[in-house]
């Protein structure tokens, strides 16, 4: 069975022939599209290391079958910065030491971008911790992660205000 899908990954349109419907979005990105920034942790939807945005919403790419994504718009960690200019969430993670080994970091950052876009947590530390609970950090950099998301949420909100002013 050959299954063809067409999707947009980090702004680039891609036509993909899938020889096997079992391929997850995670494996498609890492093994077939040379985008290894998205990490495989548990591969069971429990750790969040594989978090990407699909049509602007954060999801676990390990539980998403690639074949279901015809027409979808995917954003991975590789697609977040604008050239040399880091995304505000990336900058905040660096400034607040939101990581140690770095393995969970792409998933943490993509999840934070998704959380901020959802608009439910604001810069409330407790709501950020709850909203980020699907991303585990084995180094336990949670304090810095929470601060980074708070800071990025504030910066992005004030940038939005400037834009609309």
């Amino acid at each position, binding site marked *: 069975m050959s299954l063809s899908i067409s999707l947009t990954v980090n702004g680039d349109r891609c036509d993909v022939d899938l020889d096997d419907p079992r391929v997850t979005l995670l494996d498609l990105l890492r093994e077939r599209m040379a985008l290894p920034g998205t990490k495989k942790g548990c591969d*069971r939807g429990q750790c969040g290391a594989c978090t990407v945005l699909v049509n602007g919403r954060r999801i*676990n790419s390990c539980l998403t079958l690639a074949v279901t994504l015809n027409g979808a718009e995917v954003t991975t960690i590789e697609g977040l910065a604008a050239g040399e200019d880091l995304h505000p969430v990336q900058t905040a993670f660096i400034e607040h030491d939101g990581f140690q080994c770095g393995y969970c970091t792409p998933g943490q950052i993509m*999840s934070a971008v*998704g959380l901020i876009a959802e608009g439910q947590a604001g810069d409330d530390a407790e709501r950020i*911790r*709850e909203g980020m*609970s*699907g991303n585990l950090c084995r180094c336990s950099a949670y304090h810095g992660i929470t601060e980074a998301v708070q800071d990025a949420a504030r910066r992005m909100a004030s940038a939005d205000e400037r834009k609309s002013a």
Partner: protein
Amino acid sequence: MKRFDYSRPASVAEALAAWQPGSAWLGGGTNLVDLMKTGAVMPDRLIDLAGIPGLEDIEVSDDGSARIGALVRNSDLAHDPAFAAAFPMVAEAILAGASGQLRNAATVGGNLMQRTRCAYFTDPSSACNKRVPGSGCAAVGGVNGTHAVLGWSDSCIATNPSDFAVPLAALGAVVSVEGSDGRREIPFSEFHRLPGKTPEIDTALDPGELIVGLRLPAGAAAFRGHSRYLKLRDRTSYAFALVSAAAALRMEGDTIAEARLALGAVAAKPWRAAEAEALLAGQSPSPELFTRAAEAATGGATPSGDNDHKIELARRIAARALTLAAAGTPARMPALPASVHGDNAHA
């Protein structure tokens, strides 16, 4: 993962026609794909429902009823302003479950169809009557501290893991399903099944039937001012319930005109406590009343293993949920889950 065929029908009729034994419906896939990876579930073909239009609407009506399409994502339902205002404990329950990523993918219909998280069910090398009928139950006599205390049988002591289903049971939801024989509605109390001698059958769905939506009956929104979902778990967030409770009161002055109460994670189905509801009606809220109601809600509970603590936990969470419901739905809903940090920690 076993290889499977994949199809993406464009209508309910096409989906029903595509079904044959060995097929599985694919919604968000958050539970199904995971179970396929372990080999606990091995469908021959997946029928992807995402291409079917018309199953993503949320309608809240003036008579306090609601209709929810089966493909509405969990997060979209919880954050729908009109729905969350009318049914705050449903939103609270959804947001108490899983993670932001999973809620963005999981569908309403899929949430009702999720399988137990009993570790022996998930592990194909363990005996499990639910996974392989007649193979035995490794949970009986195994690690079973989180297993059922109500409605279990010697063949299966697993629990239903859904948070969402608990307030739906309390509010008397109805599941709309479609099959080759047409459309029918299944009362929520009959949708999930107790194990008896056939634990492999989780729900009242016939083979090949598809959930197309959910309905909350007229008047269900009348509880909006006094309703809560509370969940106890091993971690503050992102864990399945040890026990949970959905409590809703329709108050007339200081009197409880009508009460709804259901317990979660205590049985193979959300456990509606009709006896407790009857006991509450017409009374004034008091700690003694809520203690008696909680006793009634857990009547007949017996440990299925090393889990007698769950009976006391269930009593306490039922009483606590009723107490908080009586105090009124918080201004900001959903409130945060239990946390030692939060302002809304339920003290």
